[in-house]
């Protein structure tokens, strides 16, 4: 099977299901996951993001390839996962109860 992500980011392959298009889908996966699952993804993805700045700065969005697109989506997932891991200690925003805010317009990539 072909790689989902660029070769430098092969460590992310087991977390390919986080390469989701759209903030809504990524947020839905976050709140449906356990803290252990979020932490496991974060522990692998965060160092790759931290080291990946230079690579990401070279990826232009016009005509972006599939592997880079998946990488971008997975890191977008990392952005939303960072809140439970770094701040909340739980998948949902504390005290946010039943309330929701939905993305209704988003950039294409």
């Amino acid at each position, binding site marked *: 099977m072909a790689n989902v992500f660029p070769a430098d980011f092969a460590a992310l392959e087991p977390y390919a299901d986080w390469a989701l298009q759209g903030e809504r889908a990524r947020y839905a996966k976050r709140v449906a996951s356990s803290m252990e699952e979020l932490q496991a993804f974060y522990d692998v993805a965060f160092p790759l993001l931290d080291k990946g700045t230079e690579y990401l700065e070279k990826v232009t969005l016009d005509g972006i390839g599939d592997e880079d697109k998946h990488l971008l989506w997975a890191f977008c997932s990392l952005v939303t996962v960072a809140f439970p891991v770094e*701040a909340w200690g739980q998948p949902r925003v504390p005290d*946010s109860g039943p309330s929701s805010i939905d993305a209704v317009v988003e950039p294409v990539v």
Partner: protein
Amino acid sequence: MAHFPKPSEGSWTEHFKIDTEPVSYADSISPEHYELERDAIFRRTWLNVGRVEQLPRKGSYFTKELDAARASVIVVRGTDGEVRAFHNVCRHRGNKLVWDDFPREETKGNCRAFTCKYHAWRYDLEGKLTFVQQESEFFDLDKSRYGLLPVHAEVWEGFIFVNLDPDNTTSLKDYLGRFGQGIEGYPFHKLTQVHKYRAEIGSNWKLFIDAFAEFYHAPILHSGQYVADEAAKIKKYGYEALSYDIDGPHSMVSSWGGIAPPKARAMVKPIERALRSGLFGPWEEPDIGLTTEQLPPAINPTRSKVWGMDSFVFFPNFMLLVWRPNWVLTYHYWPTSHHTHIFEGTAYFVPPQNAFQRLQQELAVVSFKEYGLQDGNTLEATQTMLESRTLDEFPLCDQEVLLRHLHTTARKFVDSYAKQPSTAS
């Protein structure tokens, strides 16, 4: 401990001659008062319904549900390129003219004419009735008398506003006043990367404006957004604005910069450090053709070196936030009843040039959403307790001066409307 100077009267609230007494929130829990606000405010003032970029071509249109004003409008770019608005009502039997599967949901698209789903009456982009099914069956039908009902529409700096009052004579420019004029020239047209969020909120529309027109709550409600040490420091520091200003029904708060970029990187969470971004936006600002010092005069009005962002409240329900790192956020609060409303938050960025910048912007909007969830849910707790009428007056501090102004203004609109015999029927 004062961090920034206040007017000579000693407080902003006294400076603007708004009283300093505790306030009543009866205006936010009364269904009767809300019914008055619908006519006195939402059917009479200029309402922002979108931006020109949403109408890229001739024939581009979108609909906007204005529940509070008992209206749905079609906003469309005509064959002449002009932006117009019409009531979304077919002249034949009153069907809603433009909608997709769900009549209550907003829609958008591109077309050459609007055709009613009921009996196929057709209107051109300028609202003229151009086709009637089986026209000969009607009784001397004069098609020129049955065009779509127009709604006043005007554009300011790319923001499209409508006014549902057929007798309105105040131009949009005059309505937006000193702040509108002082913001003109900001290159909004360069900020075409759009993220938009929507939420149904269980509170009166003014209560959410209250939550976003003061930052007094930020170090407390949102303390979990900071690393622990920093949260404690921020709490101790409290919050003070650089300045407040009021112009007619509108108001603004100018705020210092906080954390974009932070003084020490240890202040921020790891993801913010890695992406050099956060709630205040990407730390490095993109080129918008103007330096911070060159921004139009209403933005950073005190020309403070530590300026971070301005929040303008354009009455009744449009807020515009201009951030130092050259991006913009708008808030809209669309009432659906005295204790519910739809909140919209829209972020506008300069289009990112690469994947890293795209992620920086993602972190900014996702941070906004996390904050918004905290705010929105708190409001439901506030609304239910206000409705319990356990208490009927509330002390507001000087950092809450815009709230006083908002509620006072809304009440004034209702009072003066109720006094007009011709319209109060």
